[in-house]
């Protein structure tokens, strides 16, 4: 695969001068004093290959947008460099400098010219832009009369009118109504299939995991992690949970089967073990049959004084989609003031109404009804198990919902 974007030792600093004199001295090439560089990105190295889709995640201020702008060419790097081997098109923060007084059509035409198109080329693409934007009669009305969603439609339609080799999308997927979000998402997928390389910033985990082959996590202006979307997103979510807490730590460890499990938390309570058992015999199992009565056993150590303890779990399928999840807060059994030093055992009994396949559970111990605040310990891939169909009729899907079938001749009066 050929390299389309080569980022080498890239850094961006915003330079501040203590006073006007120092700045003017810098213009004249004279030595300056007390010039401070505020580094927002430092020492970035990565490559994007043809046809790849790369997601960029990170907290606000991590430098995602700055990085995209430099690749798009609107901001200049302070050190290092970016080599581009193809036409790059960027949809940055809504808008392309459109003028509210002009109609959608006029703005679209001008927007196409901004990409270096000739008048003929722009005119030949306009009907497609109009059709994709779906703003109806508004296409010939001034842009200032548009809603922000409609402006976004036109902007997106213009930016994607001609398939670029590299498309940069900054949060643009989250704007507009559900219909257009879906439509623009499809358009991006379509371009991806046609060979366009994607570079996407989004806080939408689902979108990232569906589109991207690889995710880069930016932390304080540096690449902190890079790799498989699922793994990085797990890590990133864990990092977000209980942010700002000094004790909070995040670990990733590779399991025997090559999967990466993420654990995080502040450690007031720690998950000692998570195991699956047959509910009747109590024997530990790794394979459950459809419809079997099972028990998920979670053992926790209480390490420090805490006011509340909530324990929850989520069963996830092979694609890490949530199948079912609950916690002791939802079950109205919150433990108040557990004693430090104690070990608690939670046994969640349920009928294994799952379809055939491989499942995993994520388990968390926290204080409130979600893990976002006071996350004591959170463990992904805490317990994995297989479900096989031993004694039921064949069926499809992840859930076992056996129907009762009634067939009767149609008497004509039923609606």
């Amino acid at each position, binding site marked *: 695969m050929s390299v389309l974007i080569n980022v080498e030792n890239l850094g961006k600093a915003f330079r501040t001068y203590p006073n006007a004199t120092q*700045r003017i001295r810098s213009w004249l090439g004279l030595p300056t004093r007390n010039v401070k560089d505020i580094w927002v990105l430092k020492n970035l190295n990565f490559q994007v290959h043809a046809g790849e889709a790369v997601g960029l995640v990170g907290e606000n201020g991590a430098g995602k947008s700055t990085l995209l702008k430099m690749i798009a060419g*609107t901001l*200049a790097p302070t050190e290092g460099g970016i080599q581009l081997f193809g036409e*790059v098109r960027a949809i940055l923060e809504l808008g*392309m*400098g459109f003028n509210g*007084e002009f109609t959608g059509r006029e703005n679209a035409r001008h927007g196409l010219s901004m990409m270096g198109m000739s008048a003929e080329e722009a005119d030949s693409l306009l009907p497609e832009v109009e059709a994709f934007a779906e703003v109806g009669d508004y296409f010939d009305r001034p842009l200032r009369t548009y809603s922000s969603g409609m402006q976004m439609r036109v902007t997106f339609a213009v930016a994607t009118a001609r398939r670029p080799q590299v498309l940069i999308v900054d949060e643009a997927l989250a704007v507009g109504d559900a219909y257009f979000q879906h439509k623009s998402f499809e358009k991006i997928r379509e371009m991806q299939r046609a060979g366009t390389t994607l570079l996407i910033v989004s806080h939408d985990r689902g979108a990232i995991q569906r589109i991207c082959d690889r995710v880069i996590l930016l932390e304080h202006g540096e690449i902190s992690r890079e790799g498989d979307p699922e793994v990085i997103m797990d890590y990133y979510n864990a990092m977000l949970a209980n942010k700002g807490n000094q004790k909070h730590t995040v670990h990733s460890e590779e399991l025997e089967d090559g999967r990466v499990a993420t654990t995080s938390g502040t450690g007031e309570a720690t998950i000692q073990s998570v195991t699956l058992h047959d509910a009747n015999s109590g024997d530990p199992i790794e394979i459950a049959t459809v419809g079997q009565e099972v028990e998920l056993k979670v053992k926790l150590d209480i390490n420090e004084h805490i006011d509340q303890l909530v324990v929850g779990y989520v069963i996830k399928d092979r694609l890490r989609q949530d199948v079912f999840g609950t916690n002791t807060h939802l079950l109205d059994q919150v433990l108040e003031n557990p004693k430090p030093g104690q070990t608690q055992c939670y046994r969640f009994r349920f009928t294994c109404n799952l379809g055939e396949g491989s499942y995993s559970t994520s388990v968390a111990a926290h204080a409130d009804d979600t893990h976002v605040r006071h996350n004591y310990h959170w463990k992904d891939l805490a317990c994995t198990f297989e479900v096989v169909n031993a004694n039921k009729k064949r069926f499809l899907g992840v859930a076992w919902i056996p129907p009762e079938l009634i067939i009767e001749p149609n008497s004509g009066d039923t609606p």
Partner: protein
Amino acid sequence: MIQRALAIARYWWSYRFFVRSAIRNDLRARYARSKLGLLWALVQPLAMVLIYTLILSHLMSAKLPETDTVYAYPIYLMSGMLAWTLFSEAVGRGLGIFVEQGELIKKVAFPRALLPIIALGSATVNGLALLSMMLMVFLFLGHWPDLHYLWMPGLMFLALWLGLSIGLLFGLMNVFFRDISQAIPVILQFLFWLTPIVYALSMLPPEYHSYFSWNPIAKLTAAFQDVILYRRNPTELHLVYLSGIAFIFTALSAGLYLRVKHELADHL
């Protein structure tokens, strides 16, 4: 080296429709939602000419020697105003271009060097409109143009180039020190009255004449007055001098641009 220059030239050339489209948009945007549109650009200088003519023509007409028309003063005034309007508008365009186009500069990657070309283009169209309007007034006053008008395209270009090159230099500084865009109009106002536009140099005592030799704009307005009112060639040496100043400011603007371009977008 040559190959690289050619590649850049080809890249810019591919944006010619953008330049055309941007000039058209620029002209339309300024008078969007006004019925008379471009006419308003002409009303202001003409209104000024009318006011000064009404107030000052009796005072002045006797004092303009070497002229053969009773309308010498309004014509003198209009030639100077034409030069001044072209120059000061170009200064304004250059001054505002980076801040006004900030959104575009931040969001879209395109050759930045096209921005001055777009400004020059739209100022030229405005200038031509003003010139044709004034020509109509001259014809009405019975002051027909002669062959000396062949100087006009060159003079107009010189006025625009000089204004734009000065405007661009301060426009770049203005990105970092926004006071500049407030200060320049004030300075221009002084400069207007320090330039023989409303009055003629010959009306002043000779000992003051040397003070005007430092003012390059006085040479510019004189050239317009020579061609339009006096129907004679402008002083070539002055035109060379003005071109030299425009060239120096262009070089300074380009130099400053190269120095600040890496942080320009950060400050917009």
